[in-house]
């Protein structure tokens, strides 16, 4: 009986962890593209909100989840375009533009939500869980890992796809070189500016997709400021994973695990820990993660430095 409980506990926690980690995975994998090309986008928190809102609004209007996700990705690309304009073309400080983007994301989505959705109060259809045949029938872990919705599964695929694109295609090779030695890319005739634009837009659209996951596949409502710092945690995940997409998947999972764990622990009244101490855990963990992985070596060499054509 004891064993049974422990296994259930594990399985449940794992399932919750993956679900919780999913938006962070998308945002972190996206940010890895951006940072690998030498651009630091701290505006992904705002970008995620924009994705969450646009996805929600579109699905609410059209009733189609697919359209919702598509619109969210498109909105993410537009946001990325704006960020790229300022940081790559105008060469403005990337941190400052990121701060502005976060304010804009929060302000715009809240403004539009209050303007248009104040009287509806309704949710959108939720994405159904997909039960993977056979595997979902496994005891304990079947429920945990193989009865999630498609976007959750996709997060694993996206992580591996990102690894493939970054490390197994000529595009990825050039993108990584852009963050390391842009001049070396420029002399091969490729445009550093174009690659940075591309990397930022990939990053932003993935962040927006992660945001849309919250409204379309996790809960079916938009709530102001609902990303709740996930974008910033994703930034730390990127450092902790040493700019590796698959690494980011597992690091995000650890964050999700802690997040799920704090809810589990709260439900055990006997522990007597103030619930706030548990709530703070993911944030403290983020700081610890940065402390323990403090070598600058892995960071793209020109991260944060605007590229000046000779």
């Amino acid at each position, binding site marked *: 009986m004891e064993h049974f409980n422990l296994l*259930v*506990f594990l*399985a*449940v*926690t794992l*399932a*919750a962890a993956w*679900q*919780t980690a999913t938006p962070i995975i998308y945002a972190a994998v996206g940010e890895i593209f951006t940072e690998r090309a030498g651009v630091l986008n701290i505006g992904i928190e705002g970008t995620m909100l924009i994705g969450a809102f646009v996805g929600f609004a579109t699905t609410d209007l059209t009733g189609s989840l697919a359209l919702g996700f598509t619109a969210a990705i498109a909105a993410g690309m537009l946001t990325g375009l704006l960020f790229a304009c300022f940081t790559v073309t105008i060469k403005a400080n990337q941190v400052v533009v990121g701060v502005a983007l976060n304010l804009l994301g929060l302000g715009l989505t*809240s403004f539009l*939500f*209050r303007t248009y*959705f*104040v009287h509806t*109060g309704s*949710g959108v259809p*939720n994405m159904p*869980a997909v039960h993977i045949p056979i595997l979902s029938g496994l005891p304990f872990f079947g*429920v945990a890992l193989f009865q999630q919705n498609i976007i959750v599964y996709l997060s694993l695929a996206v992580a591996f796809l990102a690894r493939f694109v970054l490390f197994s295609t000529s595009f990825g090779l050039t993108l990584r070189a852009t963050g390391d030695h842009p001049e070396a890319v420029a002399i091969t005739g490729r445009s550093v500016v174009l690659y940075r634009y591309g990397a930022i837009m990939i990053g932003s659209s993935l962040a927006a997709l992660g945001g849309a996951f*919250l409204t379309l596949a*996790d*809960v*079916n*409502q938009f*709530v*102001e*400021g*609902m990303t*709740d710092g996930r974008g910033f945690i994703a930034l730390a995940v990127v450092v902790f994973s040493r700019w590796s997409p698959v690494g980011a998947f597992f690091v995000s999972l650890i964050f999700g695990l802690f*997040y*799920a764990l704090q*809810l*589990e622990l*709260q*439900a*055990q*009244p006997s522990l007597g820990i103030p*619930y*706030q101490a548990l*709530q703070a855990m993911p944030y403290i963990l983020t700081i610890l993660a940065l402390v323990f992985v403090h070598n600058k070596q892995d960071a793209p060499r020109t991260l944060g430095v605007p590229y000046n054509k000779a």
Partner: protein
Amino acid sequence: AAEFKMGLLVTGSVAENGWNRLAYDALMTVKKKLGAKVSYVELQQDPASFESAFRDYASQGYQVILGNGFEFQDAAVTVAKDYPDSYFLISSSSIHQGKVIGINLDSSQPFYLMGVIAAKMGKSAGLIGGMQIPPISQAFGGFRNGALTTKPGFGIGRVYIGSFENEVAAKEAAISMIKQGVDFIVPDADAASLGVYLAVHEAGPQIKTFSVYTDYSKVAGKNILGTYIADYGAGIVRVVTGIKNGTSIPHSNVTFGLGDPDVIRFTYNDNAATPVPQDVRKYVDEVKSKIIAGQIKTMAG
């Protein structure tokens, strides 16, 4: 006579189902029933801004201003001194000081009934709260008392997600409770409650819940055994009508309970997968009349 005007202050957004929505609906009811001119403002969580917002309404001649939350009481008391003509209603506050009047929904009473039902029908229960604030901890206290009086030793877990907006966290909390074998889950977390109903619905009809404040049967119709509807509007209209006509000014703070069926209603959902059996309903009715009669103190202990 001057136009009758009522203002509403909330922190956060009225667009989301829950606490602020309740007050917003009440404001709209006042508008419809009393033909009042109404206005509301969504403030940020910033106590400093409360006083000036009260003042702005009061100085524009609003006769009644509802501050939706105990955190408004300090500011109301200060402003009331300068505007003796306005009434300041404060949600979930035990205040009564001149024209500053606390208005409460005693949720511990319907929650007590839910506790009774859960203890009669289930194995263990989980409560998911937004934050640890009085209306929520009181409601949870009622649930606990109801359940434990009915079945001593009945297991009850409690989680605060630390937010009224984070549906995702609410959902996660619910899922984890369900997986740990809890079969009754009741949220009190404003907008975030929705996450709990989603989780319950996805988990299947063996998990039971109650719809709290608003009707969530569209989300989890098979799981909801009963619905606690709070028609805050009806209560507010009652108080405001009294104020407007000068007929009945409350002389203490106002608390609506099961004894005010126009405001607080608890009904059964017959479409649930396992509706509440008749014998339980009968027992609950007895408890209910005892609560109304004041024989059971739902918040005691």
